[in-house]
């Protein structure tokens, strides 16, 4: 693994080593990303793009990092790249679809969840949520329960017939979201519930 680090940093001095508990990881500046990826794929044999994801660091600057997980079949080893997005307001990143076609849907998911636009992506639209959904759900300011909004609009007939809309989900019976050191009574789903309790019953809509 050390040899990969040496080879990569000899070739690209701008690539910094990054703290990691498992596989080698590197910080890559955005303007070198395509070169680094092409070198990793062609010369170091990291032929498989396993995952693309992102991190929202909340109020830290730069706010968003895009993370790439690569796998080399011949080395049987993983490698991680992290790239910071320059702009926190309208974050963007270069697309690696030209290097690994597998990046297509991964980058669409990152856009869907974090609102990071990928430049030169062949088909930059949402993949999980519907096209007109107004929020990016994995951003830190987005509440776990969601925000009240309208159903997908392509079928207004259905929307009018049912008067259903997207609601902030009740936390009763829902996921645990404990922070370390917190007592369990405050980590239980019902502690975060704001709508359906015995005192405050399920609204009929």
């Amino acid at each position, binding site marked *: 693994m050390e040899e990969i680090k040496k080879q990569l940093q000899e070739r690209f001095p701008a690539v910094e080593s990054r703290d990691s508990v498992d596989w080698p990881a590197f910080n890559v500046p955005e303007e070198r990303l395509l070169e680094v990826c092409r070198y990793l794929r062609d010369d170091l044999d990291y032929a498989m793009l396993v995952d693309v994801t992102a991190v929202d660091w909340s109020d830290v600057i730069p706010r968003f990092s895009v993370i790439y997980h690569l796998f080399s079949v011949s080395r049987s080893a993983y490698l991680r790249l992290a790239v910071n997005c320059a702009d926190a307001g309208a974050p963007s990143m270069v697309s690696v679809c030209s290097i690994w076609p597998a990046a297509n849907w991964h980058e669409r998911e990152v856009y869907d969840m974090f609102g990071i636009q990928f430049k030169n992506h062949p088909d930059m639209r949402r993949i999980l949520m519907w096209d007109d959904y107004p929020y990016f759900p994995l951003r830190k300011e987005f509440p776990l329960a969601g925000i009240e909004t309208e159903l997908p609009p392509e079928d207004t007939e*259905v929307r009018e017939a049912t008067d259903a809309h997207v609601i902030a*989900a009740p936390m009763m019976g829902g996921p645990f979201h404990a922070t370390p050191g917190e007592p369990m009574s405050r980590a239980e789903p019902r502690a975060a519930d704001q709508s359906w309790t015995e005192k405050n019953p399920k609204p009929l809509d």
Partner: protein
Amino acid sequence: MSPNGVEYGYNSKIEGEVVVSKLDAVINWVRKHSIWPMPMGLACCAIELMGTAGSRFDISRFGMEVMRFSPRQADCMIVAGTVTYKMAPIVRRIYDQMAGPKWVIAMGACASTGGMYRSYATMQGVDRIVPVDVYVSGCPPRPEALIDALMKLQNKIGNERSARGLLKRDQAHA
């Protein structure tokens, strides 16, 4: 045959035995023993739904084995799985495409209430968009639970005032 040679009423020698019943009972008897389910399989509950139709559990014992993937040919939508908001209008549209009379079973925690998915993406119960007749608890429910729900639905159909609806509809068409 009466003494003066005139035939009155019903002659069982000529026309065979007859059972007198209420129109409601006859219609409901026919309906409840040939429910054609529409398997709206959206998540893992659909696997249990398949098990229910398999030989070990065998819903054909109750006359419901004719699963139809076309809403035009089905009269009981079994919503088996997590209904996302993105899917919800489609579920409703398929329900609208089914010919009446029609019924809905919400199979499992997700279809009934959103289940463990308390999140921005999941509809908190399919009853927000379609009228549900029977809810089945479980995550996923065992096939026995689904069979029980279908039998509950049969009981419900058996108590419907079907004939009144038919007459009303005839008047409306006239």
